[in-house]
């Protein structure tokens, strides 16, 4: 379970994202100044000291922070330097067993699933308030552990976590079964029951948001949880979970296990007493998770996996706007988004201008210490990802794509990579087929709609797609033709608590967020009884 990862959540369409940032805190205008100044080549200076302390490093089981049964720990690293931030308790099968037993008890004996939904709602609302109160602390921990720009964490991601909790709080008392028509004199109804103990495995690219996507619907529906964080980013979930307990969550309802995929993750996926599993990460790990579920107790599995999402710029596009959006679609979060627009298809009529401007935009991208105001791009998550991305860049060059910008490491410490742009990319090149999960944009040329539809769909993935056009008919045609779980028309990475997200094909199963996410965490029970002399049927 080496590379768990996930996409970005943004509450506003891209075009108004900076306005949203302004309204949050005001000083993000410095970010735009950062964009306009030459910065890619600036040396990585002495790292800023993170304005936060690490207070929670143990496993959270039954409402208590405890050591691992083995007493083992693992280091979590600062991607700016590769230095150790903290040593974190390393959960393994025995810890997962303890956590599942605690979740089982909390589910079977209550109070959580037996509590009035209104009360569950109130706890989630209090949690949201506490998230807001600890906004900067959570954001700083996220940046330190992950390397993402602090402004992004503090002004968008942590507020979005609070937003998600409020959204799901509102669902708790609106989960409706149906009364159902029958062919004969029967009274039929469906009960939407919580599914039980849920196992959740989350990635490192948006640790807190993925935590929110997972626990929100599970808790609103009355389930209990064992959640495994990514070994790269265990810290923020521990702090957030402590706040959730402060908000009144009963012990055992949410257990958090830090640890590795092959040990803790595998134990959770194959546990006989876990009723449901939700995983976000790579397609290769997703396959293993699904196999473990099949081999153990046939638990249903939700999978949010990889992508190679096309971003299609049509011939009528305003090139400047298209360049900016395509740049954002790929480079956002250091390119570490499963829905990154990693295949930029550009109509031949605007192709040359587009490539020229994309190159210029990438060269202007502000890369540096994520704690510094104005930084657009921090380091990649770890050495493994860093090396993998550099390998893909080499393959792009070797396969004959034109390297327009970037192409290597930035600085000599930490995991920084220069924003990289390839043009003349062909469909059969590795960089056009595989998920790179880094700041590497691949630009491809196309002739007409049928051509681009066919090529965009020629991938084992189907997570997302972007369409850039003002033509209504073109937009409608592409929207229906693209085999992907999300299509953004004239925007990208526009996320919202209510918008469902998930993949076609090998990008996964099921949908997260929105009303659709609730069904992942509910069992449907049909209740049937005969009617004597019914007044109507």
């Amino acid at each position, binding site marked *: 379970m080496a590379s768990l990862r996930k996409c970005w959540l943004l509450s506003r369409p891209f075009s108004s994202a900076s306005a949203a940032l302004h309204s949050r805190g005001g000083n993000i205008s410095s970010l735009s100044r950062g964009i306009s100044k030459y910065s890619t080549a600036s040396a990585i200076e002495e790292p800023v000291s993170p304005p936060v302390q690490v207070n929670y490093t143990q496993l959270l089981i039954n409402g208590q922070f405890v050591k691992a049964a083995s007493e083992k720990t693992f280091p979590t690293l600062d991607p700016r330097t590769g230095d150790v931030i903290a040593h974190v308790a390393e959960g393994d099968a025995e810890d997962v067993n303890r956590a599942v037993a605690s979740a089982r008890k909390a589910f079977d004996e209550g109070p959580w699933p037996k509590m009035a939904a*209104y009360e569950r*709602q109130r706890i989630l*609302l209090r949690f949201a308030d506490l998230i807001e109160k600890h906004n900067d602390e959570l954001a700083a921990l996220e940046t330190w552990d992950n390397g993402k720009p602090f402004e992004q964490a503090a002004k968008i991601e942590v507020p979005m976590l609070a*937003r998600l909790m*409020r*959204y799901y*709080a*509102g*669902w*708790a*008392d*609106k989960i*409706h079964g149906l009364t159902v028509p029958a062919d004969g004199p029967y*009274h039929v109804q469906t009960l939407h029951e919580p599914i039980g103990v849920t196992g959740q495995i989350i990635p490192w690219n948006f640790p807190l948001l993925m935590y929110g996507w997972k626990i929100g619907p599970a808790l609103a529906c009355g389930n209990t949880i064992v959640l495994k964080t990514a070994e790269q980013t265990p810290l923020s979930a521990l702090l957030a979970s402590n706040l959730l307990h402060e908000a009144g969550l009963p012990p055992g309802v949410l257990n958090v296990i830090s640890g590795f995929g092959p040990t803790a993750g595998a134990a959770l996926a194959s546990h006989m007493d876990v009723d449901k599993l939700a995983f976000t990460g790579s397609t290769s790990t997703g396959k293993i998770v699904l196999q473990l579920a099949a081999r153990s107790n046939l638990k249903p599995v939700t999978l949010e996996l990889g992508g190679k999402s096309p971003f299609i710029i049509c011939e009528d596009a305003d090139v400047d706007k298209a360049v900016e959006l395509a740049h954002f679609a790929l480079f956002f979060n250091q390119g570490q988004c499963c829905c990154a627009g990693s295949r930029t298809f550009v109509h031949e009529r605007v192709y040359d201008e587009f490539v020229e401007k994309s190159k210029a935009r990438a060269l202007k991208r502000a890369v540096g210490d994520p704690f510094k105001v104005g930084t657009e791009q921090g380091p990649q998550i770890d050495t493994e990802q860093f090396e993998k991305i550099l390998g893909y860049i080499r393959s792009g060059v070797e396969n004959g794509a034109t390297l327009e910008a970037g192409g290597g490491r930035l600085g000599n410490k930490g995991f920084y990579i220069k924003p990289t742009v390839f043009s003349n990319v062909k469909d059969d090149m590795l960089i056009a087929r595989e998920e790179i999960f880094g700041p590497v944009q691949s630009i491809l040329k196309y002739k007409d*709609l049928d051509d681009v539809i066919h090529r965009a769909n020629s991938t084992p993935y189907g997570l997302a797609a972007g369409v850039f056009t003002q033509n*209504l*008919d073109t937009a*409608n*045609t592409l929207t*229906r*033709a693209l085999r992907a779980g999300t299509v953004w028309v004239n925007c990208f990475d526009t996320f919202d*608590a*209510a918008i469902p997200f998930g993949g076609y094909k090998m990008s996964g199963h099921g949908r997260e967020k929105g*009303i659709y996410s609730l069904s992942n965490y509910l069992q449907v029970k049909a209740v049937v*009884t*005969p*009617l*004597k*002399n*019914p*007044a*109507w049927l």
Partner: protein
Amino acid sequence: MASQNSDDSSASIFVKNPTIKFTKLFINGEFVDSISGKTFETIDPRTGEVIAKIAEGDKEDVDLAVKAARQAFDHGTWPRLPGSERGRIMMKFADLIEENAEELAALETIDGGKLFSMNKAMDIPQAASSLRYYAGAADKIHGEVLKMSRELHGYTLQEPIGVVGHIIPWNFPSIMFSVKVSPALAAGCTMVVKPAEQTPLTALFYAHLAKLAGIPNGVLNVVSGLGSTAGSAISSHMDIDVVSFTGSTEVGRKILQAAAASNLKVVSLELGGKSPLIIFDDADVDMAADLALFGILYNKGEICVASSRVYVQEGIYEELVKKLVEKAKAWVVGDPFDPKVQQGPQVDKKQFEKILSYIEQGKGEGATLLTGGKPLGEKGYFIEPTIFAEVKEEMLIAKDEIFGPVMALAKFKTIEEAIKRANNTRYGLAAGIVTKDLNVANTVSRSIRAGTIWINCYFAFDNDIPFGGYKMSGFGKDFGLEALHKYLQVKSVVTPLYNTPWL
């Protein structure tokens, strides 16, 4: 479900005479005098004395309020905010209500004669919880994408309907205010609320809290006044898009006529009832007696879903009657601030006299008066819990809504007879069934023409349960997500598709 004497330890800190802070109309975010300068008196039903003089809104004031609401809808931020933002403001509003619960509960008691302990434990928290329920719904209003039979893309938009007029009654001033206002706010509507002239105090207080919470000016306007003037102006206003009314069937009819005669505005009506409670032989008699008594005496019988007709199967009739009378005699009537008291005064002199005249009518028609039947005390509008037995279908006390602590009791033999008699009414608001038999419960549930059926419980309201009437008890639902749809318009949008890979 049966009401108990409240053992409220805060009894000693009653605010028996809360200062009256808000007595003016609330229009466009400001408290203002009525244009005419007129006021009306609101009375303490414990004593009949004047509590305060309240600005008396009339047509001109309603016009101003509608203008503010129209402006706030057509050009303001409220319908243009994301649902989640409206939800945040509504959550804040709910918090402010809880912070002021003691004072609101006291106002509700002096103005309506309602039990202080119940107001604090139930009515005021319910006002907050309705707001929270619909706050949580504000970002969950889904239209649908439609299945078309040819190359078309079709979808529905659920749009806020516009300016709403709410006309609310005096029996649950806080709950009715919140149950009407909350879904309309969540939907993105703006509104004019007319509270009942008997109980204007809490509605004006809520207006103040709404402003503190951040609800923009003009979104929520409160015009206190009389039905025949202010209420009539709302229902016949050309610029109000929907009227939501709770009150008597008689007034409901006038409102519907006014809507028809003016701009055909959408109307929802929650009107009177004469709800049956049917107790079968297999019932736990003690529990059934508690339920029956609570069903008619709760809130002094001033509740549209009161179980005012109690049908008891013959096998347990005698035993049940005995228990009912015992329990009714032990029922404590008195000052609603006293935590031992279970029943306060009726809301006003008019209701008081109306109820007493129905009691006289019952006696005259030949029903057997088992207990009660008289006013209590020298002052105020207190009435004894009253039970009539051997009530026949054609008697007025079996047909009309009395809206007081007067039970009409009758005996039945078979389930078919019970169903027939229960349905023999022009109303259809609610019904109760007491039985352990699953088949009986299911059969009766489907057979009774009423909007709510309570099986082995009564008054089991909840935010998520839609509530409203069949027949002349009205149409349209309050509570639940159904209520949200009263305040939404459905717009269908269609455009052609070219080269679609699926339909």
